[in-house]
């Protein structure tokens, strides 16, 4: 049997090859005329064809004498080829013609010229854009067989093939939807330690683990050719391009293991994100370079979240301030422990357009315009309604009172009808505390000096037992009536109630214990929004009464957003940072999520100077009576310690320094000097034993110096608070 021609597609047989120059790897072969099909098969013509791992039935052999068509099959296991008769009912072929099958394997033309074959092949595989290859492109390199296939989703995929040509696994894909993605997650690299890609230009990189969890050694030279990590921000900074019309912030990052040297060392920072606090929560350790060493200068507890992220202060990065800029921001995500540095221009001069229509004189409904208000009380329920008329005190019907009545139990008493009380009899003058007498459902007042709290009642007292959560009147060690929390402080003059001094709505105290009543709300400062407006956490003191019995010291009354608890930290343990809009711990600057509601002083004899902020309300410039009043001396003062002549003092608030001494001779003098502005006042004795006194207005924090020659006793040395000062 003679075999005049056969066609092989996709092989690289060089033997007997007749190359078509229009297409790689497509050849037409002519078998010597005297070869039989058995000889062809035996002579291994198709061995290389098998190596290409082509599809079965790709080669057809026509025997013109019998007009029989044979299909050659590859045995991929042994590389042998067998021929199978397909049909004997096909048109005659001339020696220059060959049969070719269509995609289904059927003979579609019986008389095909070589030009026809050429054109058919061009139509199937031309890659000049005039035709599209629809089938997978399979290939083999050494022991690896693979394929590139399109039409899967909206892109192409690269596959590893099994020995039989079927799909083993997907290596990677490039699709419009998912981009260039690996076939399996977290298993394949881009580049290798020895073969690296040069530059990567990406908009954003999010990595589950950076550098396999090890430190990233980042070159510290801020030259354009040596930056290993370069952000759009850095590019902008180096180029001087403005990211926004407000200007540019940029940040440089230093690794925890690579220590910068030289000029870039001192004053720079790096942040270690790998550490946790005692509770396992992430903290950020900030190190500052100074004098040749890295020193831990700050520990930041990432504050509460905002849209899953929290802003981190500029301490984490070496933020380089550009002209006229106000701040930068880096985002930290608690859950994923990822941070995203990017410039976020905060222009503090901006004031958001806010809806002031909801503003009322009592500060209600301010939550929706609070972007300009922070660190204040927004609501204090006015549950206690008192009136004083002609010495008679009236608690109005509808007033709501709280009576501690066992551990964690507070009875709420609503007064059904007006209750009255007068100054009684007994020649009493002084401060009194008003209570609700639970047994008699009436009012009662007792000398405030008898108010106390703790676990052991004094012999005669109005005593809040912090263990049992009860208030009882004791007299000569005998427990008497059960009382409510104090309602108010009053002044009684010769058995006549002459004034209501302080009503305990929202906040009050008894002895050494402060109580905060339900319904108090406040805005807890929590940074700034992107437009520079104030950001708050809305505090709500839940529905329960909170009590605090702190140790001695000058303290603040604070509300916290979490679990609605109240706290009484020392006043100098934290401060309000106006720029950040945060209350921060003095020792380390870490945010304290407090709304500061008031101040008091805890002493061995109980609470004094109990002052609660009023509910926020806007200041009207036209209120010319109120505004100057804030700078005038109040009735509140603290005794200062007079040092030797020439000693210096620091003003604790806005107010007045007042000194009154007795002279021991004529012409003795006292002088108060404000060293910050040079103002001074003096008084001189004109007699040998008279009083000399003077005062000087001062602002908070100003340095004051006092000189004196007056040799007599010091009668008064006080700081008098201005009305508007805390």
């Amino acid at each position, binding site marked *: 049997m003679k075999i005049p021609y056969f066609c092989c597609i996709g092989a690289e047989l060089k033997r007997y090859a007749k190359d078509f120059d229009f297409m790689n790897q497509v050849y037409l072969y002519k078998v010597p005329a005297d070869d039989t099909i058995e000889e062809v098969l035996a002579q291994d013509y198709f061995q290389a064809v098998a190596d290409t791992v082509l599809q079965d039935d790709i080669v057809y052999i026509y025997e013109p004498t019998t007009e029989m068509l044979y299909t050659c099959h590859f045995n991929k296991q042994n590389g042998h080829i067998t021929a199978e008769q397909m049909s004997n009912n096909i048109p005659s072929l001339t020696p220059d013609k060959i049969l070719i099958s269509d995609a289904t394997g059927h003979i579609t033309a019986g008389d095909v010229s070589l030009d026809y074959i050429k054109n058919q092949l061009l139509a199937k595989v031309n890659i000049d854009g005039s035709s599209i290859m629809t089938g997978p492109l399979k290939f083999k390199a050494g022991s690896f067989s693979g394929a590139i296939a399109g039409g899967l989703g909206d892109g192409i995929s690269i596959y590893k093939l099994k020995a039989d040509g079927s799909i083993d696994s997907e290596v990677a894909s490039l699709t419009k939807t998912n981009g260039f993605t690996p076939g399996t997650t977290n298993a394949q690299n881009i580049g290798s330690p020895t073969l690296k890609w040069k530059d990567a230009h990406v908009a954003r990189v999010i990595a589950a683990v950076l550098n396999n969890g090890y430190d990233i050694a980042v070159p510290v030279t801020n030259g354009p050719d040596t930056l290993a990590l370069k952000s759009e921000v850095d590019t902008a900074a180096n180029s001087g391009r403005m990211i926004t019309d407000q200007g540019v912030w940029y940040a440089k990052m230093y690794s925890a293991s690579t220590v910068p040297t030289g000029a870039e060392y001192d004053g720079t920072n790096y942040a270690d994100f790998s550490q946790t606090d005692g509770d396992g929560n992430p903290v950020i350790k900030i190190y500052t370079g100074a004098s040749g060493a890295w020193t831990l200068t700050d520990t930041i507890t990432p504050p509460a979240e905002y849209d899953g992220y929290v802003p981190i202060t500029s301490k984490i990065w070496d933020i380089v301030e550009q002209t006229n800029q106000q701040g930068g921001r880096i985002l930290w995500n608690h859950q994923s422990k990822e941070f995203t540095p990017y410039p976020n221009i905060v222009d503090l001069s901006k004031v958001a357009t806010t809806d002031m229509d909801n503003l009322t004189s009592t500060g209600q409904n301010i939550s929706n315009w609070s972007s300009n208000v922070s660190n204040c009380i927004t609501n204090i329920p006015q549950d206690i309604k008192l009136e004083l008329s002609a010495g008679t005190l009236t608690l109005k019907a509808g007033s709501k009172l709280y009576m501690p009545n066992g551990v964690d139990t507070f009875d709420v008493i609503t007064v059904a009808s007006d209750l009255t009380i007068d100054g009684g009899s007994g020649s009493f003058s002084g401060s009194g505390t008003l209570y609700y007498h639970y047994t008699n459902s009436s009012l009662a007042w007792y000398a405030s000096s008898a108010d106390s709290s703790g676990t052991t009642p004094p012999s005669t007292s109005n005593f809040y037992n912090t263990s049992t959560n009860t208030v009882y009147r004791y007299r000569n060690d005998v427990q008497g009536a059960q009382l409510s929390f104090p309602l108010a402080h009053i002044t009684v003059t010769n058995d006549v109630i002459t004034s209501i001094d302080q009503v305990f709505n929202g906040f009050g105290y008894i002895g050494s214990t402060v109580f905060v009543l339900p319904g108090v709300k406040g805005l807890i400062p929590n940074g700034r929004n992107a437009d520079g407006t104030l950001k708050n956490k809305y505090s709500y003191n839940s529905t329960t009464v909170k009590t605090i019995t702190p140790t001695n010291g000058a303290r603040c009354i604070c509300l916290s957003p979490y679990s609605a608890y109240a706290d009484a930290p020392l006043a100098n343990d934290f401060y309000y940072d106006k720029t950040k809009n945060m209350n921060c711990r003095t020792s380390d600057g870490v945010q304290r999520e407090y709304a500061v509601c008031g101040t008091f002083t805890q002493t061995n004899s109980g609470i004094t100077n109990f002052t609660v902020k009023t509910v926020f309300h806007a200041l009207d410039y036209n209120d010319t009576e109120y505004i100057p009043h804030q700078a005038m001396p109040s009735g509140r003062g603290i*005794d*200062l310690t007079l040092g*030797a*002549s020439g000693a210096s*003092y620091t003003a604790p608030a806005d107010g007045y320094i007042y000194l009154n001494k007795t002279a021991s001779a*004529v*012409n003795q003098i006292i002088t108060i000097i404000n060293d910050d502005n040079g103002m001074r006042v003096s008084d001189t004795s004109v007699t040998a034993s008279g009083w000399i006194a003077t005062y000087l207005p001062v602002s908070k924090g100003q340095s004051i110096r006092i000189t004196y020659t007056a040799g007599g006793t010091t009668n008064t040395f006080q700081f008098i608070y201005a009305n508007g000062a805390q």
Partner: protein
Amino acid sequence: MYKVIKDNKIIAVLETNTVVGLNYDTIEQDTEHTTADYDQYNGEYLLKSKIPAPTKEEQSAKREQAYIAETDPIQTHIDRLKDGEQTPEIIAEIEALRAERDEKIAAIKERYPYTEE
């Protein structure tokens, strides 16, 4: 008692260790002395035994100020009376004023003694 220290000087001596407003460096307890053992001298507190005696010039200056304030008015009064008619009553008043003046002078000298005396 407690000593309030600033720049290595005792700027206050107190019965308690509570200091308000005054700028200081440290507070030290002194169990050997009382506040009465200290006195001010040149802007600091020193043990009275450590305070140097005033010089004659310093005491003289203080006496002069005291004379101006305390005895000069009496002397002026005496001079005015002596310019008028010397009735027995006036003479008696002058003598009384002189006695008062001399008492004050003695008191001033006692208040500001010269160490040499």
